[in-house]
């Protein structure tokens, strides 16, 4: 594994998006992973539609039957992959633009830009997460966002952050090796995480989170996706 790695430098990551006052982080995390996987397969970076997921996806989790995708009320990335495999694929952002509220489903199969072939969840081990990131592209991740409400910049490495209260879907796009941590005595590795709260939030829309501690539960809900020819 390289010491540091960043999919943004390779052109696999779209601009930082803005979910607005809508609990649709799961949709942005899903589209981010698919945008990256599609770039790796085709060499083309397409911005894909979150609104299609917000409007049309009502898929439920296999085990937790009440964990269903529900527009601005929340959802799960793994549910969304299942929905996309059944629906036939995802439209482009420009074909089905984001409105930050749930509306009538306007999905048209003839407008599908990217199809989902398969997806997988990634083991808890953060070295495995790094290896899968490098091999498969940006990964959809869930984490506890409690420190993100007041985050302005730097490497977030909180002494206490519950691993259980995972409530926010984001996109893992890379990792760095030299984020300075006073309390952890020296330079520590960190994850580079794309958020969906606009460019003005955090590090130009990104969150830098300590690597190697399962920080804020970031290792508990990680998934990779593979795309197919549309």
């Amino acid at each position, binding site marked *: 594994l390289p010491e540091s790695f960043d999919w943004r430098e390779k052109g696999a990551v779209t601009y930082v998006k803005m979910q607005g006052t*809508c609990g649709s982080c799961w949709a942005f995390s899903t589209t981010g992973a698919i945008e990256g996987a599609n770039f790796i397969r085709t060499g083309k970076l397409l911005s894909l539609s979150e609104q299609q997921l917000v409007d049309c996806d009502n898929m439920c989790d296999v085990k937790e039957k009440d964990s269903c995708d529900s527009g601005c009320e929340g*959802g*799960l990335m793994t549910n969304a992959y299942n929905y996309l495999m059944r629906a036939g694929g995802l439209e482009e952002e420009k074909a089905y633009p984001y409105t930050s509220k749930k509306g009538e489903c306007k999905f048209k199969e003839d407008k599908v830009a990217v199809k989902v072939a398969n997806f*997988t969840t990634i083991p808890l081990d953060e070295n495995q997460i790094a290896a899968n990131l490098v091999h498969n592209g940006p990964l959809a991740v869930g984490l506890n966002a*409690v420190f993100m409400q007041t985050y302005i910049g730097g490497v977030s*490495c909180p002494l206490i952050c519950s691993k259980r209260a995972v409530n926010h879907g984001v996109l893992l796009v890379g990792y760095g090796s030299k984020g300075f*941590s006073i309390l952890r005595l020296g330079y520590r590795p960190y994850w580079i995480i794309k958020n969906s709260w606009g460019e003005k939030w955090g590090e130009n829309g990104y969150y830098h989170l300590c690597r190697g501690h399962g920080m804020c539960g970031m290792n508990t809900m990680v998934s990779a996706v593979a795309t197919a020819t549309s």
Partner: protein
Amino acid sequence: DDLKIHQVTDHGGNLKLPLGTEQQFKSFIQKYGKEYSTREEYVHRLGVFGKNLVRAAEHQVLDPTAVHGVTSFSDLTEEEFEGMFTGLKSGGGVASNEVSETAPYLDVKE
């Protein structure tokens, strides 16, 4: 005890905030283009903002390598913030996955 003097303001009017909080709140409103429709709403959000200043300071202590402070979410309670800007449901983790196999272990030596 003076019967001629009656309380005419609610508890919001007695909000006790550290010196300079309202000035910071006004800067926050200007920076992020916030608008509050009523005086009551303004006072309520000022109180939330004050609490979030304390919370940001706590986060700074707990998370010293990051910078914590006033963000566009500083007028929201933790519950409001979570309801409006997060949205990940439970499930979907490694343990609950039955739809696809968990990725095989990759060699990460050296």
